[in-house]
């Protein structure tokens, strides 16, 4: 019996992708009377609109109608959690580039030209543009949260060594290749059909309904595929869909809202930049006794998803390390910049960056191999195995992964060889680092851990599959189709996955938190099993066998004395009036969590991995590159190894970009100056190191009952790239000492590296705030 799951199947749209026949929202042919929309955006970071004259916009060539807050029939909001994200600013401007109005015209070009003709005067107000400003002003989008475990104060006081320091971690633009887009088509009786490039069709549906002042059943949202999303299409698409719906409803014409790249990057939220401060106490081996950690993030002007993002940063500030006595304080800073949002890892990467810096600083201070200090702090198997949020770590794979990776990457010998190289190379220095990843799988918003699916079998035996997940390139549709094909024992191409559609599967969760195949795979499996059981019961009766004797495999249905084609049985079942469609439903078991005390089991399980990165830096210019990367990553029993490797490689390089070349730069007026690929540099092909050795951890099915015992893979690999940052630290440390290493900020651009290297001899470094030795060892 050949299996469909656990095999490397190509992406269901691969042939369409490579031939240009895969259809994205912008490719949908619209009637000739369709309207095209452009935004008018603010040109101050903080201020009040004193005067707004849109008459020149209205009278510009090709313009049909201009929309501002007063033209919104329902709520002027697209904020998913708090209602603090106006579709159009009314009075107060809260960031540079905030939408004030939209113009609908007969062409995109006409709309863009008209949008520039607005006459707006502002009263400029003082703007808080960064974390430091916001902390000083105690400006917050949400209250500060504190997670405590053990007795950090006394543990710090009792520690042999004590070190304090700061960590600066930059933000990141998603840079999905397909920009934000929504198309609204007016329907009868006040309804509207939306094609949205969204990870969260149901939320788009709800927010559009609110903006229109209609019910959810009046709005249908569809999404066949996105041209990349990475979290940037979780809460952000609602803005564009709401505007498209408002325009279409008011004009009774189809409306397309597609922003150009620059507007997209200026208007939409990004990964939160973080600033961390730590105070850590540890012993001679670098084992942490007590830790006080402050995390502050730039949330921008509104809450958006900043609450759960910062919660996840707190939940991942342990990474793989046992923190017996710890306090984590999390400030959610409100600034006059775009509202930051979900981005692959969702705060987890920033939390991990903080603790990895702590561990690395300890190692450099003690002059130990950072890997030795990491190992000294790993969660134990039977002891030292409870997280700060009091969840036992039950399936700890870090020891196994790190041991295996150390051996396969020849870590120890290469570290020695690099030290030798550096001693004889005055300009070029190399560095190496191994960092581990432990990432919690489940939404911390418990209600999102549910999914629905709809499976329909037609009388010719072909299967149409719908589920609540969305396809953004990760191969979710392929994986879920594999699950359904496996259940029916039919070929993969017998299952067609159609666009995600809120009118087929309602109340869906966002495709986020790496949960897509875990949730939707299980829901689709449940639906397929329901139909299969009906078919088996029918066959058992028709052919006088026991239902358990009916086997679905290889496109056939086999039972003692009889073998039929799947399609033949399906047709017979139809003729006998057996229902051939079913919904399926799944909710993640075991999870519970008390938001007030930050304790419980927020995660169903953990995904694990580790990477060894080796880099070179040029100490004259700060230029740097990866020389070799070794990765060993845990995906449980893989549903589709080729797709999982794709997620690991792509996530890793995206993370490497975050920590090296991707720098967001705002002017002192709060204007984002890096708003196109000419100025914002994601990794290019030559940044992928030729020498990469990437493996899936073998023979480790998920201990929990997940879909075919696989594990989530979307986000965790991004954090493997923390190894690149630490290899750069290692190289900087090799060139200019541990203080230089600690000074390195993320992203480690050539300039940041040169800055870190430039430590005047004997000076107090600005990152090690202080060093205290209780006892001279």
């Amino acid at each position: 019996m050949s299996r469909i799951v656990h095999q490397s199947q190509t992406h269901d749209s691969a042939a369409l992708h490579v031939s240009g026949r895969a259809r994205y929202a912008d490719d949908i042919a619209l009637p000739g009377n369709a309207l095209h929309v452009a935004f008018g955006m603010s040109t101050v970071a903080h201020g009040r609109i004193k005067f707004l004259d849109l008459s020149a916009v209205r009278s510009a060539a090709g313009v049909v109608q201009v929309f501002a807050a007063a033209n919104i029939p329902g709520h002027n909001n697209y904020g998913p959690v708090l209602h603090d994200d106006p579709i159009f600013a009314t009075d107060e401007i809260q960031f540079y580039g905030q939408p004030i109005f939209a113009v609908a015209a007969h062409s995109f070009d006409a709309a863009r030209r008209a949008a520039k003709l607005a006459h707006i005067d502002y009263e400029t107000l003082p703007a808080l543009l960064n974390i430091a400003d916001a902390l000083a002003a105690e400006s917050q989008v949400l209250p500060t949260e504190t997670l405590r475990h053990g007795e950090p104060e006394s543990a710090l006081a009792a520690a042999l060594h004590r070190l304090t320091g700061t960590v600066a971690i930059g933000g990141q633009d998603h840079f999905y290749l397909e920009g934000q887009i929504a198309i609204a088509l007016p329907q009868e009786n006040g309804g509207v059909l939306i094609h949205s490039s969204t990870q969260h069709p149901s939320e788009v549906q709800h927010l559009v309904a609110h903006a229109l002042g209609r019910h959810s059943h009046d709005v249908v949202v569809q999404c066949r595929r996105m041209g990349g999303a990475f979290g940037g299409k979780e809460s952000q698409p609602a803005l564009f869909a709401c505007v498209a719906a408002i325009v279409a409803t008011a004009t009774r014409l189809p409306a397309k809202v597609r922003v150009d790249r620059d507007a997209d990057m200026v208007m939409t939220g990004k990964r939160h930049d973080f600033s961390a401060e730590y105070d850590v106490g540890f012993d001679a081996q670098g084992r942490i006794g007590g830790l006080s950690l402050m995390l502050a993030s730039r949330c921008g002007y509104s809450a958006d998803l900043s609450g759960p993002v910062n919660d996840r940063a707190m939940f991942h500030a342990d990474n793989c390390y046992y923190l017996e006595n710890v306090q984590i304080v999390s400030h959610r800073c409100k600034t006059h910049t775009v509202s930051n949002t979900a981005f692959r890892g969702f705060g987890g990467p920033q939390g991990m960056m903080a603790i990895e810096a702590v561990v690395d600083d300890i190692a450099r201070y003690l002059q130990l191999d950072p890997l030795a200090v990491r190992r000294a702090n790993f969660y134990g198997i039977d002891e030292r195995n409870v997280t700060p949020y009091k969840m036992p770590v039950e399936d700890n794979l870090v020891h196994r992964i790190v041991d295996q990776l150390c051996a396969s990457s020849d870590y120890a010998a290469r570290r020695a060889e690099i030290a030798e190289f550096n001693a004889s190379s005055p300009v070029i220095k190399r560095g190496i680092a191994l960092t581990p990843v432990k990432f919690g799988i489940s939404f911390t918003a418990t209600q999102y851990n549910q999914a629905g699916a709809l499976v329909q079998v037609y009388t010719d035996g072909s299967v149409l599959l719908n589920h609540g997940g969305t396809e953004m390139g990760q191969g979710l549709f392929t994986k879920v189709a594999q699950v359904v094909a496996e259940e029916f024992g039919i070929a993969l191409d017998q299952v067609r996955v159609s666009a995600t559609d809120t009118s087929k599967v309602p109340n869906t969760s966002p495709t986020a938190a790496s949960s897509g195949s875990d949730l939707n795979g299980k829901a689709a499996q449940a639906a397929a099993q329901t139909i299969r059981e009906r078919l088996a019961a029918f066959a058992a009766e028709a052919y006088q066998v026991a239902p358990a004797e009916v086997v679905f495999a290889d496109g056939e249905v086999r039972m003692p004395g009889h073998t039929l084609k799947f399609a033949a049985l399906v047709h017979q079942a139809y003729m006998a009036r057996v229902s051939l469609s079913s919904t399926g439903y799944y909710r993640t078991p075991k999870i519970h969590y008390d938001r007030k005390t930050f304790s419980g089991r927020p995660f169903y399980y953990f995904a694990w991995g580790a990477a060894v990165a080796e880099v070179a830096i040029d100490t004259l210019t700060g230029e740097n590159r990866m020389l070799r990367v070794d990765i060993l990553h845990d995906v449980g029993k893989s549903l589709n190894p080729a797709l999982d490797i794709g997620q690991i490689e792509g996530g890793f390089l995206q993370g490497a970009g975050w920590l090296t070349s991707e720098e967001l730069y705002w002017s002192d007026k709060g204007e984002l100056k890096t708003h196109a690929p000419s100025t914002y540099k994601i990794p290019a092909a030559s940044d992928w190191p030729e020498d990469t050795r990437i493996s899936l951890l073998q023979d480790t099915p998920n201990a929990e009952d997940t879909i075919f015992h696989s594990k989530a893979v979307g986000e965790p690999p991004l954090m493997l790239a923390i190894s690149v940052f630490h290899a750069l630290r290692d190289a900087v440390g090799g060139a200019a000492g541990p203080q230089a290493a600690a000074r390195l900020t993320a992203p480690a651009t050539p300039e940041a590296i040169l800055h870190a290297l430039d430590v005047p001899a004997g000076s107090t470094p600005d990152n090690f705030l202080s060093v205290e030795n209780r006892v001279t060892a």
Partner: protein
Amino acid sequence: MRSDKTIRFVLDNTVVEAHDVAPTTTLLQYLRDTMGRCGTKEGCAEGDCGACTVVLGELDGEHIRYQAVNSCIRLMPTVDGKEVVTVESLSHANADLHPVQQAMVDHHGSQCGFCTPGFVMSLFDVYLNQPDAARQQVVDALAGNLCRCTGYRPIIDAGCSMNDYPPSAHWNRAEAQSEVRKQRLTDLQREHGLDLGGAFRAPRSLDELAQSYLQTPDALLLAGGTDIGLWVTKQLRVLPAIIYLGEVAELKQIQQTDGALEIGAAVSLSYAYTALVAHYPMLAELHRRFASPPIRNSGTLCGNLANGSPIGDSMPILIALGAVLTLRRGDEVRELALDEFYLGYQQKAWQAGEFIQSVSIPLPKSDRIVASYKISKRSDQDISAVCGGYAFDIEHGIIKSARIAYGGMAATSKRATHTEAALIGQPWSLSAIEAALPELARDYTPLSDMRASADYRLKVAQNLLKRLYLEHGDSSVSCRIGQIDGVSV
């Protein structure tokens, strides 16, 4: 021979006739909006992401030259008389994929798929033109294509294995040069240049160009359009009448005269740098890292000089080498040293109706040390934070002459005259270089912006001069992260 106002190009073996097209319409807009041919994508509309990549075929003597270009900034009138190959051209059904496409499928080279058509077309350029491409050539060919999903490994693997597949019936290397294809293009060529009622003219001779521009000096000269395209797509500028240089045969020449290489104004960066690197192999890295292949295939060297951006990468080395411009106005021709051409930010020493006809670059001489170093956040396809050009003549261990120019350090690419003066006559030694470094702070007062801070720029400008010595002096210390002994990179 054609002479009317319809733009004609070949697509999928048929001639497309584009009527009433505004001259600033991009090829991408025409394909997507007018033809409904949506395989080619818009990712950035500035030629930086490559999602819009198509291949253009152009008659070049007995041969059709096929090159990847960015359709998002390619103005429609400039495809007149050419062949356009898009991702849809390569196959008609899932079962009929071209080797480039099948290799991409088999290596899992697409995830979200939005960048994929562009990658396919860049690889198709390699497939046609570099049948023996090694991994490095494949990577270099992909420098202008961004992918946010895959990490590039499977795409590079696809590019390295596409020749393992049996050739397809259409768009194999022989069929791409078939007589039928050549004849079809030959039939599209015009007797007189395309003239869209004054809004766009494509003169066919240098004299015609010179007269035309003299008569309408407010017209905009268009060569590769890799900057002007952005004026249209990003700045929504209303352009004046356009005079296109791309059909002027005399300007497409590269000539080697006594001691110099003369490169005409319509020679693409790809061809210009290939010719330059043949004489100056040390400029291969600058060539490789200059923009991206699709941009280099469209943009011209003289366009880069005429544009005169303070962060243009050609100027520092050409100033250091003592390049000379040939400027033309009507029938008048004069020569001007490149370093005298730039007067200030976007100010140049030319008159109304005058244009760059060619640039003349001195050939190498013995005992001359030549180098150009580019520093940017990303190694490939990035705009320089600092770019240095150096030409030092060393005689008997003494610096006889030193020409140093930097981009990214001032409002124009500019020579470091104080530093040069401090070096001339000094021994060729690290201590002499180090002694001269403070002079760079007298030569330049760089700006801070999103690419780099003023402090970094100055420090790196100094360190690059140090690198020049370390690489060319006695010790020859390894200074390049890409060239580490014993480590495969």
